[in-house]
Every structure is written in C-alpha cells, then in structure tokens.
C-alpha cells in the first residue's frame, strides 16, 4: 500500500498540490484521472521520488520514501514519466536492458537477458529489438519504455499516461497486460489515464483530482458517475453501463 499523508507541493508561489492524504491499495490497478493541470503528474512524480518532497510524507509498503535508499526503492517501484526522451542512441534491446540495472548494477547475467527478451515479446517488440529508438514511431518508443519499466520487475509500477501515442489495439493490449500483471503476478499499478473509459473498463480503484486536490476516490462505479465527472471536467457528461462497467459518453 502506498500511504500519502498531508502532501503539499508548490512551485514558486503557485500551489500545485494541497494537503493530499490517501492510500493507494496494493495488488490493484489504480487510475488517476482529472482535467489537465490537476496535478496528477506532479503527484506521481513525488511518489516516484523524481521530485523531492516539500511537505508531507509518502510510504511504500511501510518504507518511508524520504529515508529509504533510492537503490532499494528502485527494486520496489518503477516509474515512467509523461515525457521520456532518451539522450543516448540506443537499440531497443539495450534500452529495455536498462530496466534490469537496479538488479545487476552493471553485470547482467543470463536471467536478466531472459527477462528482457520476455519484456520485448510482451510488448510485441521482438522484431524491432535491434532498431535504434530514434528510428521507430512514437507509439513503438512508448511501448519500449513500458517494456523497460516492466523489465524492472518491481512490486509497484507508476505510469504517467502510458496510453500516449498508442493506437486502439495497442492501448487495449497494454491495459490488458497491466490487468494481467495485477491479477496474475500480484503487482500493483498506479497509472494516470487521460481517457476515462479505460479507467472505467480496467481499473480497480479510481482517484479523481482537480486543482491539486483529490475530489473523489473509490471503485469505478462510485467515482465514474455522471455527477462527479460533470463536476470534475466542468462539462456535462452522460454515463451508461456496458458489461457491468461504467461507459462514459463525453464526446457527443
């Protein structure tokens, strides 16, 4: 479980997050939703220690973020930011291979390359393994970053808008893969999702944010209601049901 207590964050004079306290369940797929600028990325980056905490605290399965060694944290959680641009000129296999670095710290063994192959195959990248990352499409690169994050083989995965750049088929495949990691391998996933229908269809737990605050949280049925979503996005939203899950009609 990730426990967040009294977390606030400001940049200059602007308050980005205000007094956030919540718990994100272990062994579940948690979706963070909310309008642009709500502070979702900031919250995820703070949990993933990509930015230093200002006030408040975060603990990961009982380990306090501020006092746990960053090397040890890398064995427990993997973070994928919203915009990843890799500076080095790497082949896909090398990039995904870096996911194993926290485990071997420079001396990979056979087990590591087996896991890398598995991750590549899991994201349908086997054929592209020897291509350079600046010579593939945005969606393929996004899948490569995801494969690297999964290869890190941590209990927790924190993903910021992983569906970016993915087409319909790959988006569904990714959500399916994440759900499988949660139900099959007992991982916990926290992911920012832009398109609420993916949250509706796949998430176990939904956290809705607006203006740096959490405004609703619970199961998809509890959070993804016409009333909450209309308030959250300041626009009228109709919610129906499809296969016992909410179905949000926001585009008409």
């Amino acid at each position, binding site marked *: 479980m990730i426990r967040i207590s009294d977390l606030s964050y400001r940049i200059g004079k602007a308050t980005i997050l205000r007094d956030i306290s919540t718990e994100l369940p272990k062994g579940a797929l948690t979706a963070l939703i909310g309008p642009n600028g709500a502070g979702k990325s900031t919250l995820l980056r703070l949990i993933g220690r990509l930015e230093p905490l200002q006030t408040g605290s975060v603990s990961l399965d009982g380990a306090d973020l501020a006092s746990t060694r*960053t*090397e040890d944290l*890398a*064995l427990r959680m993997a973070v994928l930011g919203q915009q990843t641009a890799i500076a080095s*000129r790497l*082949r896909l296999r090398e990039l995904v291979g*870096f996911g194993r670095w926290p485990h071997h710290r*420079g001396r990979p063994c056979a087990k590591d390359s087996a896991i890398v192959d598995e991750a590549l195959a899991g994201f349908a990248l086997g054929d592209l393994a020897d291509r350079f990352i600046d010579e593939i499409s945005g969606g393929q690169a996004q899948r490569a970053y995801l494969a*690297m994050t999964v290869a890190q083989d941590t209990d927790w995965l924190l993903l910021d808008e992983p569906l970016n750049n993915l087409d319909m088929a790959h988006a569904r495949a990714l959500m399916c893969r994440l759900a499988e990691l949660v139900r099959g391998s007992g991982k916990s996933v926290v992911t920012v999702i832009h398109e609420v229908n993916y949250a509706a269809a796949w998430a176990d737990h939904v956290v809705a944010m607006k203006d740096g605050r959490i405004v609703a949280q619970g199961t998809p049925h509890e959070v993804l209601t016409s009333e909450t979503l209309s308030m959250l996005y300041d626009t009228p939203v109709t919610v129906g049901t499809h296969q016992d899950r909410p179905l949000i009609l926001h585009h008409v």
Partner: protein
Amino acid sequence: MADRRVMLCLAAVLGLVVAFWMLQGLPSGQARAFVLKLRAERLLGLLLVGISTGIATILFQTVAANRVLTPQIMGFDSLYMLMQTIMVATFGIAGFSALPTGVKFLGEVGVMVLLASILFGTLLGKGVRDIPRTILTGVILGVLFRSLNAFVGRVLDPNEYAVVQQASFASFSKIDASLLPVALALTAGGVVAALCLSSRLDVLGLGRDPAISLGLRHQREVLASLAIVALLVSVSTALVGPITFFGLIVAGLTHGLTRSPRHAALLPVSAMIAAVTLILGQLVFERVLGQAAFLSVVIEFAGGLFFLFLLIRGRIR
C-alpha cells in the same frame, strides 16, 4: 564483440605511432640518450593531453546529454586560466608563485574542481532541457572568463600581460616538463575514477528521470562526473593551453567507431583516438613539415568546421 575489436585495433595503432615517435631518425652515440629522454617527455605530455581531452569530452557530453558541447565550449578552460591568474595575483605576495610548480599546480587544480563542480553543477544538475540556451550560456561564460582573465592580467602587471596573452594560445610543442609527474598522477586518478563510474554513466546517459527511476543518485553522479571533467581539463590546459574543438572531433570519431553507447567502450576508445591524433599530427608537423606550432591551429580549424557542420545538420543530440 565489435567494440572490443575496435579497442584492440586502436591499441595496436597507438603502439605503432608511439614506437615511430620514439625511434624515427634516432641519432647514434652520445646524443641518443638525450634525444630519447626528450622524446619520452614530449610523448608523455601528448598522451596525457589526449587521454584527458578524450575522456573529459565523453563524460561531459553524457552529463550535458548532447553531442555538440565540449567542456571547453562551456568555458571550463577559461575558468581554469582565470582562476590561475587570480590565484597568482592574490597569493603572489605570500609566496604562492615561489612554491614548486607541482604543488602550485595541485592547488590550482583543487580550486578548479571545486569551482567548476559548483558552477556547472547548478547549470546542469536539473538535466538540460533547453540545449540552445545551455550552449549560449556556456559560450557567454567562456567569453566572460576570458575577458576577466585579460582584465585581471592587465591590471596586475602590464608587463606581464604579454605573457598572459601568449598563454591563451594552445601549443603542443612547449609542454612544461616539470608539470608532468603531477599531471600523470592526476590524469591516472581521473581516468580510473571515470572507468569505475562507467556503468553508472551509462544510466546517467538515459536522462534524469529514467536514471532516478533506476535507482541512480543523479545529483551525486553529475557532480562526480563534473569534478572529473574539471580535473582533466585543468591538466590539459596547464600542459598545452586552451583547445576548444579538439574534443569534439574525438567524440565524433568515437561515436562513429563504437557500436554501443557503453562507457566501458566509449572512454578507452576516445582516449586512444585522441592520443593517436595528437601524436600523429605532431609527428607530421614537427618532423615532416618542420612547423611545430601549427598543429593546434589545424586541429582547431578542423574542429571548428566540424562544430559548424553539427550545428547546421541539426545534430545537437
């Protein structure tokens, strides 16, 4: 592995060039021992300059996350020269300049490492997002340090100003032999430190966010790398003066020759390419063309053209 083959080939070429440097046209009799000693000293100087320039450039490019910057373009060498002038100026009366050259050199390098880590650490610590702005900042810093250096020099002692000016042009043929033992120790230390960091440098090269996610202490590694860069640039600047674009050619060739961006390969390859280029260039200019002072100009010219080429091609990553 392909990279291993490249390293072996380069090592063989370096061996050949070194042997040729030492043995070509050796006089017989009395003069032989003298010439050998002289050549060995010069060779050591060129090797140290080459190795430190190659490794400093690769390290710096990894930290700055781009392939057109060199520590010299960012003003590392002018900072060193400015600091040198100021230290002589302020401690001169207290007998600083009377200290043995080796000790003085050590002191200067120490201060330089500290200054450069703080200054460039703040500039690059957060990860460079805006590359053109970083280049501009560096160029401006370089100009600032150079003019300050000239200014301080002029104020101090107008007679000495000529000396300061003289020192601001690189020359591969007037290496101060008394600096060599300390320079050797410092370079060896810098190289060993860089090689020890090589796996972490690979991760650092991914950029700040992925590196932190993989458990790297990003800020600490950036500072450590910059400290090594400052050390190595100080050594080469002290030995031959400022060379702005040489590292760029070396880094370009290194990335062309190696297949993977692993620092365990990049670092030794860059060091060997730089050493071979310098020794070979000096051989040609000194013994074939008989114009010893010319090499630095040619290298800077070629490097400057390469820099323009990289900028025009838009290859700034």
